[in-house]
């Protein structure tokens, strides 16, 4: 007989308050890995609550390890995030061919090189984190036109994985859990979201994909869509538009790049090259 999410809830509810951690351990001993994988957010968080409430015994930690190893809510890599983003934007050929996990790490490196002294640890400007994005970018990513459903699913997945890992390590960081509904609270401000690197690892490529989509136009190559997208991501809209007007070409990147270099905007050109290489 498989153990369902509803079974988890009813078994825990039927147990006395003092015995619930033992019941939670027994549920995890009796469940198959397939059962555990099928459990929803509420079931996983109810088990977590009863395993971390009060003293954490060796049995509680072992049960937490079983839960963390088998739950559907696993940590996510940048490559996982990029794969989801490509699926959502499957109709855009440039996003399919040009957006890669390496693009994101190259973008982090390019932003890091350009941060001023103290930025990120002493103070934050209007843009935050390794990808240097602001609230409006975060709002765009969470818009129903773009990645709202996928981001919420991602955030739920990685925040549960994170809290399980921390709980095994003995920490009690439950700030993203609403215990009254046994649900995950997804940060509404980018300042809060960016504290979780795995949330940022979704938001950054998602926002770049949005900018690539907006940079897609007839006659423009996929590689150039990427470069225009990166330029707008980096706040270069005004200088790129002026360059297009100056060279009389609103499709290709090469003449824009040549103009930007001619007027001394080498760092902006370098940024685009570093991210798109």
């Amino acid at each position, binding site marked *: 007989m498989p153990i369902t999410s509803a079974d988890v809830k009813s078994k825990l509810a039927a147990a006395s308050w003092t015995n619930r951690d033992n019941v939670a351990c027994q549920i995890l001993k009796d469940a198959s890995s397939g059962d555990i994988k099928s459990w929803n957010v509420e079931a996983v968080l109810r088990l977590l609550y009863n395993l971390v409430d009060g003293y954490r015994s060796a049995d509680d930690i072992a049960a937490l390890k079983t839960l963390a190893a088998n739950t559907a809510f696993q940590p996510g890599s940048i490559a996982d995030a990029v794969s989801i983003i490509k699926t959502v934007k499957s109709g855009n050929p440039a996003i399919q061919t040009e957006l890669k996990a390496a693009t994101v790490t190259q973008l982090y490196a390019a932003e890091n090189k350009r941060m001023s002294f103290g930025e990120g640890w002493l*103070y*934050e*400007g*209007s*843009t935050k984190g390794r990808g*240097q*994005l*602001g*609230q*409006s*970018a975060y709002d*765009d990513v969470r818009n129903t*036109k773009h990645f709202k459903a996928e981001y919420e699913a991602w955030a739920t997945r990685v925040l549960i994985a994170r809290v399980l890992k921390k709980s095994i390590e003995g920490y009690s960081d439950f700030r993203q859990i609403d215990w009254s509904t046994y649900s995950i609270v997804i940060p509404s401000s980018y300042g809060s979201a960016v504290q979780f690197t795995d949330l940022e690892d979704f938001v950054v490529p998602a926002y770049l994909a*949005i*900018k690539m989509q*907006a*940079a897609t*136009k007839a006659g423009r190559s996929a590689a150039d869509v990427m470069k*225009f997208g990166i330029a*707008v*991501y*980096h*706040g*270069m*809209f*005004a200088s*790129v*538009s*002026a360059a*297009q*007007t100056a060279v009389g070409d*609103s499709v290709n990147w090469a003449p824009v790049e040549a103009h930007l270099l001619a007027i001394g905007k080498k760092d902006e050109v370098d940024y685009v090259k570093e991210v798109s290489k």
Partner: protein
Amino acid sequence: MKAARSFLLVLCLLLVACSEEPATLQVHLRCPANPPAGTLVLNGETVDIQTACRKQTLTFDTHSANEPLQLKLRRADGVQAEATAAYGEELQRDRHGFHAIFELLTEPPYVRAARL
């Protein structure tokens, strides 16, 4: 002590100012070699076409978040036309604020919103 307090106050004000995202709107105009006489109505303001084309970029203090932007062309020869830049398409936001591109044309449709 007083100087230290003043320094901290200025620092706090600077940090607050730096932590807000700009909501300025820059409209980038692409005009024909000889722009016609007339006016443009943009973001509630009326501007002379030839003056605007010389400037190439018009800057406004604020734009209502994510609203479409309409440009109305009123040429002196009687030609009237309108174009709208939609947010996420021709109207974009970057870390410096909102941006839109409009092209003025010598032939119909006379004005159109353009992507970067």
